[in-house]
């Protein structure tokens, strides 16, 4: 019987009410009295030397308040990078300066050169057109291998375009090489994980405000982590201490990683608002978003898998080129390293692994985390090479995976992480059942009868979520802790407000978090309100990404609520004239064990704030507690996805006919929300597999900078998803036993789709072992026709 409230209930989302009636409050809905508008003049060349910027005519145009250029930011900090990777030789990565507005050179199409602040957007845009730029175009470097083989340098002051050459685990390298020498079979695959653009439907917006009377600055911004922006921008860019800087991220229209990072436009609006003593607003256009939001993926990889004669995995060796773009975005260096190399074991007990990653600067938009961030890249290459090995060795791909599964936990991989729990056979079996794999042959024959080639693809994935143990990531180069916080404020009449550093931009936190606390206390969910997105009213927190909000932020709420309950029990003991140890809390009633004496939650909370009959000598009045939760490990969601496609042999068009996802997310708080998260992730992963690609030409012009050119999945591009999360091995190290579900769909689906298409082609006699994504009809047709 499904629950109708608390943990495990599909409580309907309270957020929906405002979003369905046009009453959401997004950043672009904020308009401050007297605000000015900024338009950024951006580079239209990928690489060039700025010889002059003539703003004279533009500055005299109607409505123009002030025009800023890089010269206005001399002595102001650049955008900081939040993660320092150490290379194979023990040296720190190369870390270029990242100015707010270009200084001396432009390094990618979209690099901001000047900022026109005017009374209206239209005036700012008109004036920007009147700025005369003298830019000497320089040869650009777009291809990563060319960039590290003597191509033009993106940054003149760096030694080369190589950000770092990372080896993991470097000490394993010789043993891995020896295992390859001794292997009965080696499967090799070269592939690309193409560049993507996150494309939340809400473009980025920033509104800077400054109060001359107090010296306080406020930034309203489309961010997944307002506290991180406050820290980075305040401490590293503008030199504003946190107590004089407030960052507000109200309703945010999707993020998918792209709104984690601190962007130049945020710092600019905050800076300019103080300079002109007027609020300054920027709203990105969609084409600006394509040129200025951090992109995702963009890896070129060679992976090798060594197997013994029975198909047992002996070793994995990879070499990846990872595109950083022209500058280091906030967490860019961590994505191809610690979020990718550490996942190369997948679900398998491969004893030896060596991962080499060369991170490269090119004249392109910076690349950073996008839904999954490193884990999709790891999963894709691993699950593709396993499929290829299965064909080469004549082993059923299901059996090859199954015989190599990790089955005992905890399991320490050779790539530094320890999986606490899991049951990969369970999710595999469940997926095979839900996907009705036993009926595939009949469906294949039916497809063949109408001239279509049917294929079936499988993918098993694991990911690391619940980011992350602070001490561990500190050792790995993170320049931040990755705990989460919660303050639980109980009001006199018993309602609660929970202030959290987690940020909701579609995940339904305002609904799911109260379910947890309501269950703990035994009160109605409607008595609990979640407050987030404003540094002025929530404790320092690290925000939402890496499927961490429930595992880390939820755990902080549990800890704070436990403190609340402990104190409330003492108050109840006083009211009931009993010992603390004898007080039990159930269904919102405190009772003395073994008696019929009880006092209600509301009576205890009232006593805390009207302490007439209260143990004042032992206990402070009030009922408010804060907890910071720092996880002791990552969480490891895992599962199996199965895709069935039909390929049209005449056109190469791929149609996904069935898609099954069997996930193990540990305990589930709100199944409805979890399913929605999986659906959305699947659509993005299927989008990557079939449709999406960010394309540059050889000169660094971005050819896919509008929705006419970048193919996002539409409702009729995606299939019906059969999802199952009944396999649940609860996380062993957080109090909720939860693992995180936000990224799984995007991680697990691309290899399943590509495996299915390759399967369809192979079954029809085509010797095709790989096709790079997106699997457009043209690419599939070309692969089929040699």
């Amino acid at each position: 019987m499904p629950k109708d409230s608390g943990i495990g209930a599909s409580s309907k989302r309270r957020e929906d009410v405002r979003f369905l009636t046009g009453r959401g409050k997004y950043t672009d809905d904020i308009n401050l009295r007297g605000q000015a508008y900024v338009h950024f003049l951006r580079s239209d060349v990928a690489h060039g030397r700025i010889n002059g910027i003539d703003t004279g005519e533009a500055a005299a145009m109607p409505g123009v308040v002030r025009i800023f250029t890089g010269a206005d930011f001399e002595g102001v900090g650049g955008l900081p990078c939040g993660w320092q990777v150490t290379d194979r030789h023990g040296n720190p990565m190369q870390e270029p300066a990242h100015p707010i507005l270009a200084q001396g050179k432009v390094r990618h199409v979209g690099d901001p050169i000047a900022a026109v602040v005017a009374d209206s957007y239209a005036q700012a845009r008109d004036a920007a057109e009147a700025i005369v730029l003298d830019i000497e175009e320089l040869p650009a470097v777009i291809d990563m291998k060319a960039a590290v083989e003597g191509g033009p340098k993106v940054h003149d002051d760096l030694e080369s375009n190589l950000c770092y050459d990372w080896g993991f685990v470097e000490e394993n390298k010789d043993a891995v090489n020896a295992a390859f020498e001794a292997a009965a079979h080696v499967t090799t695959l070269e592939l690309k994980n193409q560049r993507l653009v996150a494309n939340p439907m809400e473009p980025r917006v920033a509104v800077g405000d400054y109060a001359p009377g107090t010296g306080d600055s406020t930034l309203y911004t489309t961010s997944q982590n307002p506290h991180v922006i406050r820290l980075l921008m305040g401490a590293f860019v503008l030199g504003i201490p946190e107590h004089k800087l407030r960052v507000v991220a109200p309703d945010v229209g999707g993020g998918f990683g792209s709104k984690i990072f601190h962007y130049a436009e945020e710092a600019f609006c905050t800076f300019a608002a103080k300079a002109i003593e007027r609020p300054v607003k920027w709203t990105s256009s969609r084409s600006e978003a394509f040129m200025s939001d951090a992109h995702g993926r963009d890896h070129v990889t060679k992976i090798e898998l060594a197997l013994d004669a029975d198909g047992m995995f002996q070793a994995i060796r990879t070499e990846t080129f990872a595109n950083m773009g022209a500058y280091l975005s906030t967490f860019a260096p961590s994505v191809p390293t610690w979020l990718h190399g550490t996942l190369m074991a997948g679900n398998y007990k491969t004893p030896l692994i060596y991962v080499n990653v060369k991170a490269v600067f090119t004249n392109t938009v910076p690349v950073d985390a996008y839904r999954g961030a490193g884990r999709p890249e790891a999963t894709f290459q691993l699950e593709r090479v396993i499929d290829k090995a299965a064909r080469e060795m004549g082993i059923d791909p299901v059996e090859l995976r199954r015989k190599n599964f990790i089955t005992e936990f905890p399991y320490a991989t050779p790539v530094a992480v320890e999986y606490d729990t899991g049951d990969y056979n369970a999710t595999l079996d469940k997926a095979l059942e839900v996907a009705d794999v036993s009926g595939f042959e009949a469906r294949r024959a039916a497809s063949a009868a109408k001239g279509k080639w049917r294929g079936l693809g499988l993918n098993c994935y694991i990911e690391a979520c619940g980011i992350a143990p602070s001490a561990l990531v500190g050792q790995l180069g993170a320049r931040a802790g990755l705990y989460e916080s919660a303050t639980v404020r109980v009001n006199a009449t018993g309602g609660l407000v929970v202030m959290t550093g987690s940020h909701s931009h579609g995940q339904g936190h305002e609904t799911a978090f109260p379910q947890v606390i309501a269950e703990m206390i035994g009160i109605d969910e409607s008595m609990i309100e979640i407050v987030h997105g404003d540094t002025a009213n929530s404790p320092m927190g690290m925000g939402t990404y890496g499927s961490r909000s429930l595992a880390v932020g939820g755990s902080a709420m549990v800890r704070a609520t436990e403190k609340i309950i402990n104190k409330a029990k003492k108050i109840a003991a006083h009211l009931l004239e009993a010992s603390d140890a004898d007080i039990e809390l159930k269904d919102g009633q405190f009772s003395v064990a073994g008696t019929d004496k009880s006092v209600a939650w509301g009576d205890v909370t009232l006593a805390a704030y009207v302490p007439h009959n209260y143990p004042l000598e032992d206990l402070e009045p009030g009922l408010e507690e804060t907890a910071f939760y720092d996880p002791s490990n990552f969480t490891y969601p895992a599962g199996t996805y199965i895709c069935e496609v039909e390929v049209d042999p005449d056109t190469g068009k791929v149609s996904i006919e069935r898609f099954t996802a069997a996930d193990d997310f540990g305990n589930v708080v709100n199944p409805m929300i979890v399913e929605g998260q999986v659906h959305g992730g699947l659509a993005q992963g299927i989008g990557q597999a079939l449709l999406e690609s960010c394309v540059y030409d050889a000169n660094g012009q971005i050819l896919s900078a509008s929705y006419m050119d970048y193919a996002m999945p539409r409702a009729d591009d995606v299939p019906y998803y059969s999802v199952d999360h009944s396999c649940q091995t609860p996380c062993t190290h957080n109090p909720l036993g939860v693992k995180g579900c936000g990224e799984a769909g995007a991680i697990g689906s691309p290899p399943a789709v590509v495996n299915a298409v390759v399967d369809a082609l192979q079954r029809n006699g085509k010797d095709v072992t790989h096709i790079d994504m997106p699997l457009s009809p043209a690419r599939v047709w070309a692969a089929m026709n040699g």
Partner: protein
Amino acid sequence: MTQTQTISLTINGEAVTATVPVRSNLVDFLRNDLGLTGSHVGCEHGVCGACTLEVDGAMIRGCLMLAVQADGATVTTVEGLADSPRGQALRDAFHRRNALQCGYCTPGMLASALEYVEAGRPADRAAIREHISGNYCRCTGYQAVVDAICDLIGQGAKA
């Protein structure tokens, strides 16, 4: 420089007269001049559907219509729908079936869904997908939106 024109129209049942730059599009006029921020701007070139709203009974892209073209028109936005019984059953269905996450595409998605439902069309999942294919949603993967529309029409058939 900036030419303006005075227009009169009915928005959510209220008569409005305003002087607008002739280059201003309808959704910017609604959002910035009238504070009707329920309609959202996602791409400004008519592809994403976030700004879909009703003009004289037709669902149109608010970013592809100039405000001056709406002179004399009757316009209904998500705010106008919310204040009327019209669309209530659809909003309930979206809520019941979890057909929204971040909410940004939702006003436009509701408009397109309402067009389908009010046309009396069937609970045919493929037809619904085709009909809402002009509205991008990056969060839901669309399945729950189709579920909601099917649910409302009264048949929950999978396809």
